[in-house]
């Protein structure tokens, strides 16, 4: 069964590009265009991994990560933060907000794939009572 990845990204072109490239690699993709939608989609679909842009409208990426990581149903989902900022402070803030990893734009696709595969490999333990829809 293909792993499901949620892309939370407000830039339509980047969202489209990432979706197509990841679909080609066999992943099932769902998308959200702002932070609020991102939280709703994550709670409704319980994806295997989330690619989260940090500069988002409505609710920013850091807050999205904090809310998902403090909600029992979604706390186990690995999050890779994506940002057009390339500063160490951003990385630290993303990790502090609960993100499992971090990557910068412009995205180096092979590097990102490596991070996705690493986080998906050891299946994250699902909290009791939570069923992961496929």
């Amino acid at each position, binding site marked *: 069964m293909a792993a499901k990845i949620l892309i939370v990204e407000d830039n339509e072109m980047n969202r489209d590009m990432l979706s197509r*490239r990841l679909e080609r690699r066999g992943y099932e993709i769902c998308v959200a265009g702002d932070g609020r939608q991102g939280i709703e989609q994550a709670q409704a679909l319980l994806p295997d991994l989330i690619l989260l842009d940090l500069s988002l409208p409505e609710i920013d990426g850091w807050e999205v990560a904090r809310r998902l990581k403090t909600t029992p149903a979604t706390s186990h989902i690995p999050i890779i933060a994506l940002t*057009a900022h*390339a500063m160490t402070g951003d990385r630290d803030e993303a990790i502090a907000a609960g993100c499992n990893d971090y990557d910068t*734009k412009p995205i180096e*696709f092979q590097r990102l794939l490596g991070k996705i595969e690493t986080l998906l490999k050891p299946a994250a333990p699902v909290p009791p009572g939570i069923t992961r829809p496929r």
Partner: protein
Amino acid sequence: MLDDSGWLTAPNTMTLAGLSLGVIAAAASWFILLNWRVRRKTELIRRQIELEASTERREQQMQRMEAIGRLAGGVAHSFNNYLTSILGFSELLLESLPAKDLSRDGIATIHKSAQRGTEFTRQLYALSRKQALQLEILNLNTIVANMEAVLRGLTGERIELSMALAEPLGSVRTDKAQIEQVIITLVQTARDASPNGGRFTIETRNVDFAEPFIQDLCQLKAGPYVRLSIGDNGAGMDENTRLHIFEPFFLSKQKSRGSGLALALVYSVIKQSNGDISVASEVGKGTTFSVYFRRE
């Protein structure tokens, strides 16, 4: 005038002359003193005006550099989003197209240009003074000595490169890779200013400022520092160039080589590393860049 017996008598010529001379001498002294005081006051006012003007100019220039940094960071952020799409879609197309497709070359060129754009935005980020530096305790003599072969390669045979490295030299806290790039950029700048060859000097020494040292944008508190100077006897620069030398694209307007960001990056990196940089230059005589780091 009274005589010895108390009678009023006419003053003799000698006495009058003496009196007149005394009055003239007193008036002259008073005039000289007044003139000196006026001159001194004028000089003090002139100095004060100059100081205020130069402080204001320096503050404006520093605010300008801060604003440029913020703008550069903002531009880089937006461009990284655009470049993500350009790189991503061109890679997607290259993955999809057959090996012999005629469009591949064009798409590969788009991809390559976007990658260059990525390098450029990396430099713009560096200008916003928020990049990560690996600060460590270093000896600048070791760094310069290890770079000697590279620097001689950069300068070529027409430039006589001499080194005057003070021993013992205090340690400084900075980023090794960044300071190496700073030295290379300053030597390249000196080389560009010396198209007909010349003499370069790289000098290190310990300096101690009893009072704050202020020169153009360079502002150092009193204390112990290590100074690294790179001097040339090339074309030199006028005051206006010297004051704007660290602004992005300033030198590129004057047909310098490079991206136009090199000296702006030097300024940014040194400021991030708690150092500072000053420039002394005279048209036709040459330029010396002096980098200061607090001595550890």
